[in-house]
């Protein structure tokens, strides 16, 4: 039964109990990195290891997006030479990874968090400031899994 639940169903059936916000970790500078510390409100809901793994993968994806190397330099030079018109035809590397992150979050929600009554919001919707985790009341989700 948990497999047939999707995000819409959760919204309609369950009420929002609370929201947890995982803030940015600025200790490494301005690169996009979220704190991997496990929030205490999720203790009863999700496995600590699982959550930390999700956050670590997310951080790695953002690091990949923002990596400055030969490839980004080439992309920048090419863009400058074409007066940035090249981006009418192709996506920037950053945008490609952002899409990858969106897919990752959707997949994590569907496979892991929705059955537990949680919902991860893509940080891009919050301006890359926080990872918002919505905790739904454990009403309609069956106890048997």
């Amino acid at each position, binding site marked *: 039964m948990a497999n047939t639940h999707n995000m819409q169903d959760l919204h309609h059936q369950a009420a929002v109990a609370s*929201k*947890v*916000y995982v*803030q*940015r*970790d*600025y*200790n*490494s*500078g*301005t690169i996009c990195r979220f*704190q991997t*510390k496990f929030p*205490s409100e999720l203790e009863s809901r999700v496995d600590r290891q699982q959550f930390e793994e999700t956050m670590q993968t997310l951080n790695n994806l953002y690091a990949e*997006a*923002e990596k*400055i190397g030969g490839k*980004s*330099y080439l*992309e*920048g*030079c090419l*863009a*400058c030479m074409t*007066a*940035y*018109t090249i*981006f009418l035809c192709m996506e*920037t590397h*950053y*945008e490609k990874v*952002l899409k990858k992150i969106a897919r990752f979050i959707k997949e994590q929600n569907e496979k892991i968090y929705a059955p537990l009554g949680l919902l991860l919001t893509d940080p*891009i*919707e*919050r*301006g*890359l*400031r*926080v990872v*918002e985790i919505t905790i739904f009341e454990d009403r309609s989700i069956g106890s048997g899994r």
Partner: protein
Amino acid sequence: IITRTHRRKWQIFPGRNRFYCNGRVMMARQTGVFYLTLVLIMVTSGLFFAFDCPFLASNLTPAIPVIGGVLFVFVLGMLFRASFSDPGVLPRATPDEAADLERQIDGANGPSGPGYRPPPRIREVVINGQTVKLKYCFTCKIFRPPRASHCSLCDNCVERFDHHCPWVGNCVGKRNYRFFYLFVLSLSFLTVFIFAFVITHVILRSNRTGFLSALKDSPVVVCFFSVWSIMGLSGFHTYLISSNQTTNEDIKGSWSTKRAKDNYNPYSYGNILTNCCAALCGILDNLFISSSSLPFLLFSSFSSISLLPPPSLSFLLHLSPSSSLPSISLPFLLFSPSSSLPCLLSSSSSLPPGAAGSLVVRICRSATEQGS
């Protein structure tokens, strides 16, 4: 009560920006000076192409108008890109997020007794060995990321805030800094190009007809000071890029050794090439505009946060450069035929370091510690 309505993000944008072309173009409220910039560039270039180029093309080489044309198109392209794109505006906190932050701050602060004014909120974080203070923005209800600043003209927090440029009609921040820089750089090439060839034209003509009549035939007299001020600005920004600083940080002397002996810039990569690469070839994304087609949840009941201090206090906390910068960011571009305005670029104004003054109570919070 949550009503789901498919309004675009830019339609309910709380800042003071203006949107055109269905949210694709984002500019500041005051755009008059931007049109002036456009007119100045087009008029001067137009006069150059109309009056000097025929002579130069026939007497020297037709490559001159071609190169001029390419430069002109590039300058306009960069100007439009710098003016119309999102500088890196940080979306304001949702009501739930703001409430959560308030709870965390109160938890760290402790209960307030009678007559105790709630202090401005500050978090400290250590980046690359340097302590950086993150200030709480009362308008946007967020702790500003490092290098972000609130622009009082646009009423937004902008990431990697450089300055608000009225000539470009927009803030210059993380997402449009490279366009601004390329605009200024290419404009300095264009002005030098026009200036040089106008002089050449006058000289060549004066060989035949005499100096004064040559001047009469060439109506474009590009102001000498304007060329220098634009070149000065591009030199200044080249210095900023190579040291990975923003105009904001440079003006406030954030990383200057005058503040503290062991002060250094924690964001610099150490070498000039990497700094340039990071500033010019780093991430490029139109966060706000590209996601404008996503549906947005409108909350019809906002949770009231009664602990906020009055707006006058929030004004103190906004980094003061943003309101005084128009006079600083205005140097260049005046190459109208008869003007002789001097360069206004002043990069060494001393601004008071944290305007919050005696009300500051530091909330030191390392990333790993959490009040329980």
